[in-house]
């Protein structure tokens, strides 16, 4: 393998160092608010753009590596930039550029952590994510991985005076840490008992089926904990709402993807075999996660929790794609594996854009209104048209509607599913179409959720008086949002071009690409396998709709001569309407609650007819919490009380322990 020019990897390393430098400046100038917000964050954003550019340039090149004289003495930091890393770095840079720019206008003074510390944590977070993506040995990977968890934890707990936020942070870091230990064990198993923890050595190692499976399961658990796979997803809906919105955007949009990256890296790059049941496991887990996530998103009343659950859903979809890729790969159907992988990667990119966009939009709403409860928002399209229109793009994208980007990746994934009849395993034949059903169901529910999300926040009439004071986004914020919206649109319209870039990744990992077929019929039509098999042209689609709208509009103008009069809403003639009569978030979630009742723990507080001040309250909680976490906590509790018996304060008993130990060992040793 020829060594490519060290330029891109050098630039990326430079950006990481640059970010760390910004972080240190932030630490030094902790209270200089203007410096931090007007200079440091935009600079960080510029760095992100440079990083994305360098990574993009590296996509087509041969892998480049670098060894830094840091780290453990026998294991200096190895960096390597191959197509997979480059792709995720593009994702990181492209998304974080917008988030940094947005942050420049977002963070306010006097909110918990001083601005300089926020800057420190934020840029540490960025740098560590880039570190994860560049790492080429287990140690650097773990260091960057945990630094990422740690810096994001501090960002989550910015507003640490609220007990719920502290709890959220704790839960997040705990699950992240347990996951990290699993990843560590995974690396331990993977180095094939050679004692060499570079990825290069792991690529060489041949593991037996048992150990490979152990490795994969550990990786699935460890990375799944970070990504938010069931059942270790519980931290996600707690931590994402707790964080400041740019941080939620970063966590949801980018950090979760690093987990996907890790899973891909381990499964497709470091392990030399893939077994089919791994794929089935990942597929099943992914789909269950997707359904579970979207189901819970539908019943949330907090807008950021809703988005967080939606992230759970999207991660589920991505992992399902990865699982499918594994299945195909295990049976040597490399083209199809590449198709599924492309779909998963594409969805990663899409999710990064639209989810960041929506989180940033909610961040602005939160700032402008001080409210995150959907039941108290409404009608914001009049107060903040910019944000509302941009958020509409994100909403349509996340609801996977054509011609935006969310649709493309789901379309590709469904295409991949439709090839599963070619699999030689008779059980998989039947399993996978049903799985496609689950995927479609999740996607359709996402539409439901997003209508609720957008409609309740931006449309209708304001549910609270104070919403009248809400203002539109500032210039920094607008710029950030626009970048992401443009991303959603372009990614949706030019899939052929995007897939041509993704091909570098699939060629690297699977040895096959869609390139020769995907663009066979030109740049206009996306034909992943064969033109007669399936095709889709979002640009044509968009053009036709736009022409249709324009033509209709023109026709109506031609024939119609009436005037437009404004009046009170009709609403079947009901008098005395108030904004409180609109559907609330709970109301919108009611059908879902009813249909999927067994999955929720619902607590209702209903007013009686005689209540002077009637109150209605309802909480919906996760059953898994009762099924998995509380039992585990109780078990740990029981263990501790069991252990506590050991130490009851009597010195005689303590002496007995020593005595007993001594005797036991003496008898053992002889």
């Amino acid at each position, binding site marked *: 393998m020829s060594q490519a020019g060290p330029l891109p990897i050098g630039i990326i390393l430079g950006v990481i160092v640059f970010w760390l430098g910004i972080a240190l400046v932030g630490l030094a100038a902790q209270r200089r608010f203007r410096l931090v917000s007007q200079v440091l964050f935009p600079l960080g954003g510029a760095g992100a753009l440079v990083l994305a550019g360098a990574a993009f340039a590296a996509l087509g090149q041969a892998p480049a590596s670098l060894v830094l004289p840091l780290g453990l003495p026998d294991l200096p930091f190895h960096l390597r930039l191959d197509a997979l890393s480059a792709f995720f770095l593009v994702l990181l840079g492209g998304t974080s550029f917008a988030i940094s720019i947005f942050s420049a206008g977002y963070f306010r003074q006097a909110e918990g952590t001083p601005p300089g510390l926020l800057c420190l944590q934020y840029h540490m977070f960025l740098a560590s994510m880039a570190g994860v993506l560049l790492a080429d040995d287990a140690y650097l990977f773990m260091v960057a991985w945990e630094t990422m968890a740690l810096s994001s934890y501090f960002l989550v707990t910015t507003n640490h005076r609220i007990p719920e936020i502290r709890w959220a942070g704790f839960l997040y870091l705990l699950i992240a840490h347990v996951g990290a230990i699993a990843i560590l064990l995974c690396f331990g198993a993977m180095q094939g008992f050679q004692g060499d923890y570079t990825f290069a050595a792991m690529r060489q190692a041949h593991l037996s089926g048992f150990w490979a499976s152990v490795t994969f399961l550990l990786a699935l658990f460890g990375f799944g904990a970070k990504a938010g796979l069931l059942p270790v997803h519980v931290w996600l809906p707690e931590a994402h709402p707790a964080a400041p919105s740019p941080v939620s955007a970063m966590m949801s949009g980018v950090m979760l993807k690093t987990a996907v990256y890790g899973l891909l890296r381990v499964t497709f790059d470091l392990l030399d075999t893939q077994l089919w049941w791994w794929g089935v496991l990942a597929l099943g887990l992914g789909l269950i996660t997707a359904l579970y996530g979207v189901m819970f998103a539908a019943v949330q009343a907090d807008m950021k929790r809703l988005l967080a659950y939606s992230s759970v859903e999207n991660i589920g979809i991505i992992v399902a794609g990865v699982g499918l890729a594994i299945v195909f790969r295990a049976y040597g159907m490399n083209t199809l594996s590449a198709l599924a992988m492309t779909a998963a990667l594409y969805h990663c990119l899409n999710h990064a854009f639209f989810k960041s966009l929506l989180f940033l939009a909610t961040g602005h709403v939160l700032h402008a209104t001080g409210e995150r409860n959907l039941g108290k928002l409404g*009608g914001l*399209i*009049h107060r903040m048209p910019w944000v509302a229109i941009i958020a*509409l793009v994100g909403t*349509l994208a996340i*609801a996977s*509607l*054509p011609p935006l980007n969310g*649709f493309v990746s789901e379309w590709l994934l469904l*295409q991949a599913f*439709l090839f599963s*009849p070619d699999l030689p395993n008779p059980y998989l034949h*039947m399993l996978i*179409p*049903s799985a496609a*059903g689950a995927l*479609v*169901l999740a*996607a*359709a529910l996402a*539409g*439901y959720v997003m*209508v*609720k999300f957008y*409609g309740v926040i931006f*449309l*209708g*009439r304001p549910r609270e008086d104070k919403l009248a004071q809400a203002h539109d986004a500032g210039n920094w914020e607008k710029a950030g949002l626009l970048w992401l919206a443009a991303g959603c649109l372009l990614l949706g319209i030019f899939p052929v071009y995007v897939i041509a870039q993704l091909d570098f990744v699939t060629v690297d990992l699977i040895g096959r690409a869609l390139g020769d077929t995907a663009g066979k019929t030109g740049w206009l*039509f996306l*034909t992943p396998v064969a*033109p*007669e098999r399936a*095709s889709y042209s979002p640009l*044509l689609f968009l053009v*036709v*709709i736009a022409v*249709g*709208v324009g033509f*209709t509009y023109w026709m*109506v103008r031609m*024939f*119609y001569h*009436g*005037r*437009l*009069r404004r*009046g009170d*809403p*009709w*609403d*079947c003639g*009901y008098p005395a309407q108030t*904004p409180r*009569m*609109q*559907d609330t978030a709970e*109301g*919108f979630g009611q*059908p*879902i609650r009813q249909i999927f009742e067994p999955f929720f723990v619902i607590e209702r507080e209903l007013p009686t007819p005689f209540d002077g001040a009637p109150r209605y309250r309802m909480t919906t909680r996760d059953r898994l919490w009762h099924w998995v976490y509380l039992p585990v906590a109780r078990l740990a509790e029981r263990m501790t009380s069991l252990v506590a018996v050991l130490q009851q304060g009597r010195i005689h008993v303590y002496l007995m322990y020593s005595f007993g130990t001594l005797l036991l060992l003496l008898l053992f040793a002889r």
Partner: protein
Amino acid sequence: MQLTISGLLYQTIQSLLLVLVAPLFLGWVNQCRAWFQNRSGPGLFQPYRNLLKLVNKDAVMAHGASGLFRTTPYVLFACMWLAAGIVPVLATDLPYAPAADVIALVGVFALARVFLALAAMDIGTAFGSLGARREMLVAFLAEPALLMVFFTASLISHSTSLTTIVETLAHREFVVYPSMAFAAVAFLLVFLAENARIPVDNPATHLELTMIHEAMILEYSARHLALIEWAVAIKLTAYTAIGIALFMPWGVIEAGHWEGLPTALGAFVAKLLAAGLGLALLETVSAKMRIFRAPEFLGTAFLLGVLGMLIRFLLES
């Protein structure tokens, strides 16, 4: 994707045909219903007259309406038009068809629906949001079921492109596919739900607590309402055309066969008439369900769709 003159011609003919004929088809269904109910009926062209009446009225719009509310009718209409351009009605040689396969077709319907639901919530009335919620409830179950139907068909033809599916089904030797029977039933259920027909919804009612579709468009008037009504008619026709294409595809022209046009046209009109009659009959003999039963109804459709796919694997592969 060979761009041929004939293809362009077919494309234009069928897009215009479906759009223009749609109100007539609606009128036919209403007329049939009236016959079944022993009424004399408003006449076949009543929908056109309605549209004309609406277009000539002054529009009233609520104070709180935003740009979204005003744009939605146009988007809706454009989406339906696009859908009408994809479904092979007369010929499979459609140059625009590769732009969107069945999944994208479902996406188009979803796009239209999301816009409509958002517009319904825009004014901020109780009924608007109620309608939006119910519509989305129906949709999230109907959409997967519809896709399952399409998938069953595409498993047979190894393609998700609607034209290819129709070509395969229409021009291969005749085979009875049990899976398609399941799919047909599922499609029928989805068809009723998606087009707001009895038993899921009643297009003729403004009875507040039971309506779904009508609740969403309560605030629309004049030209906007006209566009929506027209779009709804196109949707009904397009769905019927899809049903015809999937389950009764005989008579559709293959690429390059000019001479088949009259036959194809005749076959299509006949099938459309039959379908309208069937729909009217079905609507007459069944009663509107409670809204809470709708999930079960559509759940059945979804299940049938999945079963169809499974049967495809069990019996036909």
